[in-house]
């Protein structure tokens, strides 16, 4: 029983809300198109990250490009 309980433990999703002094549209644009201007640089590739790419279309890819040209999917 206890093993069942341990494996079905639910974690709250990581959720953040910040308030910024920008119109919603501009805030969204900054978040998406301006991603590289504010992202603190967390990356998962073995190479240093050159940039993160958010393809602005439905079904678009979301990945990082390393300084050596390698690509790593983010989601």
């Amino acid at each position, binding site marked *: 029983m206890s*093993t*069942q309980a*341990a*494996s079905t*433990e639910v*974690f709250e999703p*990581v*959720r*953040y*809300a*910040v*308030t*910024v*002094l*920008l*119109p*919603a549209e*501009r*805030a*969204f644009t*900054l*978040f998406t198109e*301006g991603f590289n*201007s*504010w*992202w*603190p640089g*967390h990356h*998962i*590739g*073995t*190479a240093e990250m050159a940039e993160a790419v958010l393809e602005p279309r439905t079904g678009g890819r979301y990945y990082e490009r*390393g300084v*050596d040209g*390698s*690509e*790593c*999917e983010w989601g």
Partner: protein
Amino acid sequence: MRQSLSEHQRIDPGPPEPATRNWPAAARAVKLAVALSAVLVVAAVIDQVGGRSLADHATAVYTPYGKRADPNLLYGLVYTVAAAGAVLWLLVLRGVQSRGRSAPILTVVVTTLTAVLALFLLGTTEYGAQVFPPVWGHPGPAACRRRSPRGGAAPSPPGCLTGSSVSCNLPFVETYGSAGIAALGDPTRRAIFESLAHRPKAVGELAADLPVSRPAVSQHLRVLKEAGLVTDRADGTRRIYQIRHQGVQAIHGYLDQMWGQAMAAFQAEARRVAGRAPASAQKSGNHRQQEEL
């Protein structure tokens, strides 16, 4: 730099039995004990000033639970124990050098005290992890060797995070959460982990569900176990694997911290952008934009 507390503990009982009359040898052994206490102080100073592996380790242990580790307290404890050891052994040295009657008794008392102190440090655990691990130092190289790819394990996308690359490439990130994420960088390992999230399973069951051989599943399970994401227990001749709650919690804490930093950075950049164009910011004073993730 590696410093072993257990070594300290093992060597300290070096002084001879009370029956021994070999005073010069006894004096040498006691001097060695004093020197080892001094080495502990020096090692702690070097770690505090340089690598901070002890502080990083504590941060990794505490962060997932929303607690902050106090490096000053940690290093202070080590200094106190080392200084106490040095003072006590210097006392013994004086006794041995004057060949006093009390020297053998003092030696036994101090040996016991030292052993108790060492055991106290080694036995201090918080949230199931040792606060003072026996071997300090950067776990990277050892971990990299241990997790190096072996035959049978499914390949990961080139250039992306793998179990073997994380501790080599991200040595300064909190090791627990990021090691867990790195272990899940491999698609097969992720599939195994997700399968175990439904219920605990044996190796054979996992291999039956996945297009991977049994040895490969075992290999992946070992990596997941090393990353603290699964635990196993014996059930007759089988080993049952299950998700380790603390491992998932560590990843959760890591992601939470990462997004906290990211959102603070986003807010700062938005403030900068708004400041650069005060007119539009003024106009949009009532707009509130929330980014939820």
